[in-house]
């Protein structure tokens, strides 16, 4: 058996497994009944029902970066888009860890890999229609992907295709000289139901990439560029009725949605109304007083409502304290002296006060759970370990810290600078608390605040600046684009990810062991074997001590008791919007 055939066989086995899991998803989502209690929607479906009718009102304290599936980078919008857009693959609509599982959406199966991992093929399900009744073609998916290259018109979305596909200089469809505007040579559409991707190098996580909403098809004739956000053409259960920018958009039922091909969505409510730019405290009051059903941002209630909810048993029963997907941490730079010595970095790990860290972020409910790893518990590949006693000695292990300082040749401590985003009060509080904690072993950290907008572009993300200004420590946070080790770890810890500006590997870790493990992981198509590697990388990164994990962030979500089919989708770290009903 040659390697090509081996990949094909694996793909077939994978497809069969996916087919079974889709059936399972539909069953699980409708039968996992849970009564409304505190945290009930994290592991079960609260108020499962197929009752139809009513209007579901969302409130959002901000505005979307865009409602165009090809032009958004907000997790809550990726969740909303599932109401009106279907990607090639998507996340299984179930509570618990199953919500991180990728399942086919427009495609009949997950990608079929060939050519030593360089070619990924997807076949579209038959009879998927747009809201106007026309049929979705693979060329429309290709066109949607081409739009992600047009950064001058659609600047917001992820840029993975330009990195992964073998045609990085493609200018986007608006400058495409091909008559049909389908000139991206690294994507083939041999027929209207097949799409083939040609990668520059193997990338086993490619299914996660096509799960991003940039594969939601766009009919070229209906593309209005920057204005497409005003009415994206629907393939999901709902379609746009109206959109007043920055104010409100409404979705109504799409009569041409193909329900039988879509076990991950429901079409229950008559209408969805999204009120934008609503005062955050007003949103909480609206939720509690039944004037709104969902906080679109999905980042949890504010301090006043949190106190009200937690102190009132009946309100508390409608709340869920879910992991938000973020890790809040402190970078420890491996190039700034004396932190270029791993023992000095480990001294920081041991001396840190994790309870103070947690308190700075709002405590165990609003802030999160004390972290000991870079991978968060809701990430595929996470394995619990604790090299520095973060959970067993959360106030710090000062004796071990002093031992490490001695091993580093700095028995009396050293001086460095700690950067943080000055317009983020929680980061400022964290920096202040850690400054005090580190001083217990003689590490003197001078605090230096920077504006969020330029934190990575001009300061902490510019290695030259970091070296010149002795920024040994920098407070940061991360949530992955997809829920596995690559999404969480690569841009924080891989050597090739280090950039001259806009760098997110602020620790500047360039460990051959880590880099080789990444290379191995992206070429490993077996998910179980790949997930083992993520945990190995996590352990190696913690051993290198370039990141001091603070908290696995959590938020207090409130579910309106009138909603049906409510559960926290692990991937989005908020309620799944595509199955909600009201009754």
């Amino acid at each position, binding site marked *: 058996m040659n390697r090509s055939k081996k990949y094909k066989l694996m793909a077939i086995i994978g497809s069969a497994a996916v087919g079974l899991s889709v059936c399972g998803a539909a069953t699980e989502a409708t039968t996992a009944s849970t009564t409304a209690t505190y945290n009930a929607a994290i592991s079960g479906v609260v108020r499962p029902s197929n009752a139809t009718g009513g209007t579901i009102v969302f409130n959002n304290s*901000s*505005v979307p*970066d865009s409602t165009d599936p090809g032009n958004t*980078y907000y997790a809550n919008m990726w969740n909303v888009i599932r109401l009106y857009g279907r990607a090639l693959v998507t996340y299984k609509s179930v509570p618990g860890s199953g919500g991180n599982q990728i399942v086919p959406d427009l495609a009949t199966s997950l990608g079929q890999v060939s050519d030593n991992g360089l070619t990924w093929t997807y076949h579209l399900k038959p009879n998927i229609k747009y809201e106007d009744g026309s049929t979705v073609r693979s060329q429309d998916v290709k066109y949607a992907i081409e739009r992600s290259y*047009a*950064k*001058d*018109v*659609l*600047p*917001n*979305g*992820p*840029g993975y295709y*330009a990195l992964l596909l073998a045609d990085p200089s493609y200018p986007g469809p*608006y400058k495409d000289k091909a008559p049909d505007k389908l000139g991206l040579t690294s994507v083939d559409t041999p027929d209207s139901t097949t799409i083939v991707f040609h990668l520059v190098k193997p990338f086993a996580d490619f299914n996660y990439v096509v799960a991003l909403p940039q594969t939601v098809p766009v009919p070229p004739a209906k*593309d*209005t*560029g*920057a*204005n*497409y956000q005003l009415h994206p053409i629907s393939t999901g259960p709902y379609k746009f009725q109206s959109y*007043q*920018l*920055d*104010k409100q958009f409404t979705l109504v039922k799409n009569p041409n949605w193909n329900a039988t091909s879509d076990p991950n969505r429901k079409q229950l409510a008559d209408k969805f109304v999204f*009120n*934008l*730019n*609503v*005062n955050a*405290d*007003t949103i909480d*009051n*609206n939720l509690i*007083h039944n*004037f709104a059903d969902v906080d679109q941002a999905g980042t949890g209630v504010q301090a006043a409502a949190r106190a009200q909810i937690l102190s009132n048993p009946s309100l508390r029963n409608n709340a869920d304290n879910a992991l938000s997907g973020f890790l809040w941490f402190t970078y420890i730079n491996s190039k700034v002296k004396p932190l270029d010595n791993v023992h000095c970095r480990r001294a920081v790990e041991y001396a840190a006060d994790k309870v103070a860290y947690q308190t700075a972020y709002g405590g165990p409910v609003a802030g999160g759970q004390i972290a000991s790893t870079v991978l968060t518990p809701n990430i595929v590949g996470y394995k619990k370990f604790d090299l520095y006693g973060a959970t067993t000695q959360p106030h710090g292990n000062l004796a071990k810290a002093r031992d490490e300082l001695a091993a580093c040749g700095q028995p009396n401590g050293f001086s460095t600078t700690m950067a943080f985003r000055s317009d983020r009060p929680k980061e400022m509080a964290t920096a202040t608390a850690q400054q005090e904690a580190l001083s217990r072993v003689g590490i003197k950290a001078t605090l230096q605040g920077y504006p969020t*907008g*330029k934190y990575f*572009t*001009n300061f902490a993300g510019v290695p030259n600046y970091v070296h010149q200004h002795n920024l040994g420590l920098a407070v940061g946070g991360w949530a992955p684009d997809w829920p596995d080790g690559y999404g969480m770890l690569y*841009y924080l810890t891989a050597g090739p990810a280090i950039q001259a500006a*806009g760098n*997110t590997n602020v620790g500047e870790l360039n460990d051959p062991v880590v880099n080789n493990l990444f290379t191995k992981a992206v070429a490993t198509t077996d998910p179980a074997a790949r997930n083992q590697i993520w945990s190995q990388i996590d352990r190696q990164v913690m051993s290198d001590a370039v990141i001091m994990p603070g908290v696995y962030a959590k938020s207090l979500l409130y579910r309106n008791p009138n909603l049906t089919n409510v559960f926290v989708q692990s991937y989005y770290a908020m309620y799944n919007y595509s199955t909600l009903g009201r009754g």
Partner: protein
Amino acid sequence: VITFIVRRLIITVFLLLVVSLITFAIFFLVPRLAGQTSYELASQYVGRNPAPAAVHAIEQKLGFDRPLIVQYGRFVKGIVMGAHYDSGPDRTYCPPPCFGYSFRNQQPVWPMLMSNVPVTASLAFGAAVIWLVAGTAIGVVSALKRGTVFDRAAMGVALAGVSLPIFFTGLIALQLFSYRWPIFPNLHYVSFTANPLAWASNLVLPWITLAFLYAALYARLTRAGMLETMGEDYIRTARAKGLPERTVIVKHGLRAALTPIVTIFGMDLGLLLGGAVLTEFTFSLHGLGLFTILAIQNNDLPEILGVVMLTAFFVVIANLIVDVLYAVVDPRVRA
């Protein structure tokens, strides 16, 4: 009077040009003098982890790579002649007065500004009527009943009104009348043309909250003005002539006392029309105030520039109207 108005209109245009120049310099020239490159500016509008080519594309599209004088020229030309913007497959035409192209929304700024004006105008005019009537009435009565319990109570409340910020009184009002006793539940803006009753009922709380602040100020000003005026010789003369007390108070006393009130009213109303930021934020009203907050949060310079220009226009026009009224009332102003 017509010559006076024409002269003031010409000055108004000149004034707006100066405002635009200063605002443009603050937002575009000052950062550049501080070392910001056009690449850095463009990188704020390209999403996360942008490739350099993407930043250059935005830099080129938004014109950051051009000299500042050219950018300003394009801005002014757009106001007078309109402009075309590349929005993908089509070129979007922004008719005059075109205030530029939003970096954030990828939309012309002017239509977005205009879509917010009815909300702010509804809020500002409604509140203005309440504070003008209530404030001056309380001020007059307080002046006439100087030293009484009413006077002291009214001035005490006025002091509280001036002191309490809107985000406090507004939240209290919402908590009491929207959530605890839902007399005005689920507040949201409804346009006057769609449903006048719903328009008014959804704006009552914001009107009262906003008017509370201004009415307090106007009551104190009116009271002070009335006290001063009612002590004038010509008031004594009017009373000596046997004029009814109501005529003495309203025609001779109040008219004179109102002159400074009218001046301040013009300024206040003009500023509010540019966006009642705190009231709109507290009550989630999508007017120019909320628009401004979003523009600042996103560092969307054309939007900020547009709001500043529009606010300046409202203030200048409101002052022009006040001056014209002065000119009508007092011929000495026309000289």
